[in-house]
């Protein structure tokens, strides 16, 4: 018997709206959590979650049943997050340029982060430091680390999600771990 997601995907492909709703119910929280850890903003995480499901829906006919459905859906969501992180970086460099010209409000370019001070207080100091350290990771390390520690994916699965060899995943996990150890060692 096929995994439940593959069966749901088939039904959804035939136009069964309820089947797709079940896929959403299964993965909505997981994708949101992933996106939130990658992007650190509730608004952006919601946008990415919605966009990821839209892509899943549009590409159901291209879903290869040889691949785990979770791998496929994480790939779509992770790619969207990486795109956003890259764009954000470009926005920052644009920001730096416009700051030179002055007159423009540079703050307008800072990506939205709706964590309220009140929310922030609920986080322990340690959690805050760890998250800030993760924030500073470049996108390619960040995606590997988030997949590894959030969803406990094996290195093999991360390789499949990101479409790269396991050796590359390993190198990135090692470097990410090294980077964070050094960063945290100084602060904690």
């Amino acid at each position, binding site marked *: 018997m096929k995994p439940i997601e593959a069966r749901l995907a088939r039904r959804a*492909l*035939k*136009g069964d*709206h309820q089947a*797709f*709703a079940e896929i*959403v*119910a299964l993965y*909505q*929280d997981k994708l*949101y*959590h992933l996106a*939130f*850890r990658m992007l650190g903003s*509730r608004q952006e*995480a*919601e946008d990415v*979650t*919605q966009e990821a*499901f*839209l892509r899943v*829906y*549009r590409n159901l006919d291209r879903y290869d049943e040889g691949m785990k459905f979770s791998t496929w859906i994480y790939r779509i969501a992770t790619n969207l997050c990486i795109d956003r992180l890259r764009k954000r970086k470009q926005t920052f460099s644009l920001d730096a340029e416009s700051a030179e010209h002055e007159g423009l409000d540079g703050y307008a370019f800072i990506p939205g982060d709706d*964590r309220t001070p009140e*929310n922030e207080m*609920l986080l322990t100091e*340690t*959690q805050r430091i*760890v*998250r800030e350290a*993760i924030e500073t990771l470049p996108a390619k390390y960040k995606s590997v*680390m*988030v997949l590894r*520690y*959030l969803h*406990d994916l094996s*290195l093999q699965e991360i390789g499949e999600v990101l479409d790269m060899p396991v050796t590359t995943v*390993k190198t990135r*996990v*090692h470097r990410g*771990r090294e980077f*964070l*150890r050094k960063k*945290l*060692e100084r602060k*904690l």
Partner: protein
Amino acid sequence: MNCAQASRLMHEYFDGDLAQAEAARLKAHLDGCPECRERFAGYERTEAFLHMALAAPVGRDAPDRAALTERIMGSLPVRRRRTFVRWLRQYPGVTVAAMLGLVLLAGFIASWEQDKVLVVRGSDLSQIVIEGNRVVVPEGALVNGDLVVENGEAVVNGEIRGNLTVIDGTVNMASTAKVIGEAREINQAIDWLWYKLRSAVIGLAS
């Protein structure tokens, strides 16, 4: 084992990929190297922090689940049910041909429905007697050529030197009857259609 090798094994260990034998070798190195022990402890803390910080529930940053689900489902394009329309758009030639066929078929069926009056056709009708909706070829009479009867009864007592075709009617042959060609009865729309087509083609050819 030097410290660089030990560091590599530490990563393998935290990846969950370190074999038993290598774990023992790493342990031996750590026992004798306080610097690597400190490094190992650092990795351990980092791992714990990462799990805590990343896997922890999003708490107050959690979205309104129902609202997000609604937004997701609302954003989906409506299209699956319209595959037939999409198919038609993809093959305009087939669509046009099908439409043409449909119109022709409708025309044929309409004319078939309308043709309820008696029709007698032939090249030699001089000796034929019509009684109501009966078309009689009297005994001893000779029809030189084809005879077509529509919506009536063909009573053949004499001789027909050609084909006899009866559409939506019956054929009544006497023992004295003689048909040189083919005697056919057509009672169904499809047969009739075939007959019309055939006569159209033959008409075009001749």
